[in-house]
């Protein structure tokens, strides 16, 4: 290069600083408050689904399954109706962390990739978002179960 403009450029470190200065951060307090109240409302709904389950007559052992099924159903339904992504845009973690968010993370890729086929689209991509949660969740439960077994039957 005959002309050298590199001398006008900041170093990588300096540039990082410039970028940070010029870019606003997410509004944290607002984010926390929104996540708190929406997440809270979802949990309250979950509580009343539990009450409903008891009233129907589910046993204590089956009640969590009834509760989870109902919440997953509505998370999926709202995703299909194109509402859940709007809730998520507003509430962030408030609607991602509850089980309805899990339903959303499975349903959304299913809708997105249905055009690539039932097997190669939906089948292959269904767990692209939720996959890591399942992988590490199941792995952790296996390890936990092993420790429990050691404690109960070995020592």
């Amino acid at each position, binding site marked *: *290069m*005959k*002309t050298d*403009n590199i001398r*006008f*450029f*900041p170093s*990588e470190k300096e*540039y*990082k600083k*410039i*970028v940070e200065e*010029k*870019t*606003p*951060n*997410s509004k944290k307090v607002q*984010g926390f408050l929104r996540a708190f109240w929406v997440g809270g409302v979802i949990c309250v709904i979950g509580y009343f689904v539990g009450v409903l389950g008891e009233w129907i007559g589910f046993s204590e052992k089956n009640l969590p399954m009834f509760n989870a099924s109902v919440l997953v159903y509505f998370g999926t339904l709202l*995703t*299909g109706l*194109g509402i*859940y*992504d*709007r*809730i*998520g*845009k507003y*509430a*962030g973690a408030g*609607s*991602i962390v509850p089980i309805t*968010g899990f339903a*959303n*993370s499975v*349903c*959304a*890729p299913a*809708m*997105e*990739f249905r*055009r690539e086929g039932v097997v190669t689209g939906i089948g292959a991509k269904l767990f*692209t*978002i939720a996959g890591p949660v399942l992988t590490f969740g199941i792995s952790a439960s296996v390890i936990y179960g092993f420790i429990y077994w050691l404690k109960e039957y070995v020592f």
Partner: protein
Amino acid sequence: MNRRGDRTVVFENEAYISSSASIAGKKEGDGPLGNSFDEIVKDDLLGTESWEKAESELVKRTIYRCIEKRGIELEDVGVLLAGDLNAQIISSGFAARDLGVPFLGMYGACSTMIESLLTGAVFVASGASQNALACASSHFCTAERQFRTPLELGTQRPPSAQWTATAAGACLIEHEKTEIEITSGTIGRVIDLKIKDASHMGAAMAPAVTDTLFGHLDDMKTELSSYDKIITGDLGIYGLDILKELVKRKYKMNTDELFYDCGANLYSKQQDVHAGGSGCGCIAGVLSGYIIDLLRKNEYQKVLLLGSGAMMSVTSSLQGESIPSISYAISLERCEND
């Protein structure tokens, strides 16, 4: 046509824009530049059954409009230079399949339109083709599923995130004189200041734009002030701020009025797209409508267009690579009819 300086090509009354057309989606149509598009498509799918087919249809429609406005037929097109953001540039390739014209696929990520115009101008100026059609497109839904997350996933985007524009633009370049001349073009270099945040493309691309801008001005031995406007593609609101900061290190002048970013101006604040628009269609659509109109109306005499593209992929990001970027420049000048 001559090479000047390190990497600039100068055209001397050899390449003119004779026709242009742009088509945009509904959201872009609702934005402040809505009136400048030739057509606004209400249906995201354009009557097809997938987003990719829709984008391809968008490309075809834009090309048809562009040649219709000039009054020529498909058979008269010497070469089509087109590209998009989809892997293996399928939107352009599939459109070219249906059009049946000589086709050169281009890829410069979001800088594709300027890369195509520069290459097309070289084809026309050298006599390799009697005319050249430059085109680029992007679609929010195809980009989102390829680069980010499924549409219906409920996530939040940071303030620096940009919105891929659903838009396409096409320009016809000819040897015969018209009101708008392509006077020069500068080839970019891939620049990387090690930004890794894929939701802050403006920060990744601003150094490449700065490098090409400095290179262009050096090669042409000219100053920033010789242009009425310096138009960047999709740096977004914050990327543009960063660019101004970088430019200030060499040219100590107030550049607030001089720079215009297509992405930062494509949507209004109320549309809540965070830092602005992005994608190949962003500068392609704004140039082929709004900017060309302003040149025709004599509002601008001389503008420099700087497209910028991030040369990364999902794979490179997952492997922890930073985002290298490139920027191409072309200058457009209004010439009076004799």
